[in-house]
């Protein structure tokens, strides 16, 4: 019975303590990585904007300029380089330092330089919009477009064979896709850039283009096109042109514009398909699909690798923050939330109701 005393060898005690210490260090390390990779959004500012029929009114705030019109609202930063914008009709647009409004009945366009106060009346017939600090005008029949410079002159003009159904632009590239599956990639002078022939969706029963996204560094762009089958294609820069790097045959079908964006670092591509969320790792070509029933109302890149999605389903409306191909966390928002915009170091959420509109700015914790 003397031998019934339980004792652990001293050598084992020595092992357990360092093991726990190591696990604790690993946990702290991973926890700190998680915090840095998935910044938590905090509501920092809510601005209620009454809808009044006034021309753009600039109000300098601490870091952002808030503007309002009868049917547009947004924020731009004080360095006049970033714009956060939402719209309720297609007749006007506010971009970095300019405001353009179309008067289709009079077949003219008014372009205001918001900082010099200069106003130009231009003989253009169409609807202005702004992307990446550039001003485009879309023909009312969606079968033609032009780009304006800040002096109101047309940089280039182009006509399309069928109505434009998808579009994307960055600083020097713009891409236009139409109902018949034609995809035109243009430089900032309107010159067509070679993307090759025999495009992946050319074998589809109908070849409509549903989504285009150009990466911020302009080294890649992606397209979702084709009705039966629906194809997702990634193009990468190849000399002076682009070539197909990856093409995926998607299940299901589309029948309207599909939201699709690259993360700001270009590593992930995300699209809101009718049957779920699709994610493509652009470096490895790894494709992920998350089936879901919710409706994606808007989508924007945020930070380096995050993509934020405004979602509505039976559980209400929320922001879902994805990082590296996985949902990191979700944030409930008002059911009237309408659009989201990456405001550099903050996210701007627009809500609207019959009586008033509200911009809510989310900062990063």
């Amino acid at each position, binding site marked *: 019975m003397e031998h019934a005393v339980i004792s652990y060898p001293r050598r084992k005690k020595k092992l357990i303590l360092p093991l726990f210490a190591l696990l604790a260090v690993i*946990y702290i390390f991973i926890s700190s990585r998680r915090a840095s990779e998935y910044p938590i959004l905090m509501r920092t500012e809510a601005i209620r904007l009454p809808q009044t029929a006034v021309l753009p009114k600039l109000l300098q705030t601490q870091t952002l300029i808030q503007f309002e019109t009868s049917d547009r609202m947004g924020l731009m930063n004080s360095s006049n380089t970033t714009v956060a914008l939402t719209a309720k*009709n297609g007749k006007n647009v506010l971009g970095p330092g300019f405001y353009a409004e179309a008067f289709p009945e009079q077949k003219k366009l008014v372009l205001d330089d918001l900082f010099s106060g200069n106003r130009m009346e231009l003989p253009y017939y169409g609807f202005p919009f702004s992307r990446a600090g550039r001003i485009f005008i879309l023909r009312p029949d969606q079968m033609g477009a032009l780009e304006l410079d800040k002096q109101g002159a047309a940089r280039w003009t182009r*006509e399309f064979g069928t109505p434009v159904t998808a579009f994307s632009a960055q600083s020097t590239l713009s891409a236009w896709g139409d109902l018949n599956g034609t995809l035109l990639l243009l430089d900032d002078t309107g010159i067509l850039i070679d993307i090759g022939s025999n495009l992946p969706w050319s074998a589809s029963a*109908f070849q409509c283009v549903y989504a285009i996204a150009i990466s911020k560094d302009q080294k890649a762009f992606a397209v979702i096109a084709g009705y039966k089958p629906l194809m997702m294609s990634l193009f990468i820069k190849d000399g002076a042109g682009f070539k197909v790097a990856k093409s995926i045959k998607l299940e299901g079908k589309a*029948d309207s514009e599909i939201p699709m964006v690259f993360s700001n670092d270009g590593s992930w591509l995300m699209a809101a398909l009718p049957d779920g969320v699709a994610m493509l790792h652009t470096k490895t070509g790894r494709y992920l699909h*998350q089936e879901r029933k919710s409706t994606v109302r808007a989508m924007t890149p945020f930070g380096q690798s995050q993509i934020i999605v405004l979602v509505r389903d039976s559980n209400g409306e929320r922001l879902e923050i*994805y990082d590296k191909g*996985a949902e990191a966390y979700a944030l409930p928002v008002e059911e009237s939330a309408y659009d989201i915009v990456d405001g550099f170091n903050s996210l701007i959420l627009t809500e609207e109701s019959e009586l008033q509109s509200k911009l809510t700015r989310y900062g990063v914790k």
Partner: protein
Amino acid sequence: MRILMGGLIFIFVIFFLSSSGGSLMAEGETENSEPRKVLGLFGSITSFGTAFQNTSHDNGSSVAAMNLAIALSKGAVPQLESAFSGPIIYRQLRGGGKTTSLPRAASFIAVGQDDGFIGIYQNSAGNIVTPPTSWYEKGSKITVESENPALAQASWQMSVFDTNNATWVNPLLFNTITFADTAAPQFISIAFHGVDSSHEYAYDKKLKPTMQVKQGKYRLGMEIQDRTQKGGSFSGVHSFRILMDGVTVLEKKLDTIWVSADGYAPFNNKPPSKNSLDAHGRLIIGELDLVRGIHVLDIMAADFSGNAASVQLRLTVE
């Protein structure tokens, strides 16, 4: 020991990732729903016709692709019957784009048929309501929701695209609506533009139908309207025939408009469509060789319903 520690770390990391990420799975499938057939009455029409007008744009002009403009009578149900059977391959609502969307002046749906034709129905004053099946049978209703139903009734357009041949097709070839068009088109002006020279000659109905022109090849431009005085239905200018001294030298029909990466153009003109217009907005029909001598030029145009108009010019070619 290293293996044990590595294993523990691996298990820990796997556990962490699985708890923090969303569930990822294989591509989902969308069920194909059975097409739904809807029958109903069709509203009466007050105005109807192919719009082939010039539109001012980018300091120049463009030709509208072939659209059938349909205005329903006041009080009618704002709906059309689909002339096509197939799935909706694209739908668009009116309104401003979000930050990632294009501005949208009109709502439209594109119905794709098995034979490669796409029927496009557009309403610029309301949003087209699509069936949950995303499918239209031929004859089923296409309805619109609008804050201004009276305006929506008068704001329909239909167009047809042939994906097999990459051409717009005259929508009247697919039309199932009965209408009456008894009025002939009216010539407004005719012009001759030198192809290899800068010679230009114009005629309008206020002038005498005699012209002195230089010998050479000319592009023939015409401004012609097919609209009734009372604003009723019209079928649109469809065919042109040019006779020189009784012999047909040029014959064109507006059945298709071909498209390319540079746009589209009627009568085999070079895209974009603004190349099909002269500086005064006249439509370029084709080219004529005018050789020295005195010639009688008969220019005839007919609308889709067969109502014809003609002009006779006496040309002295030097």
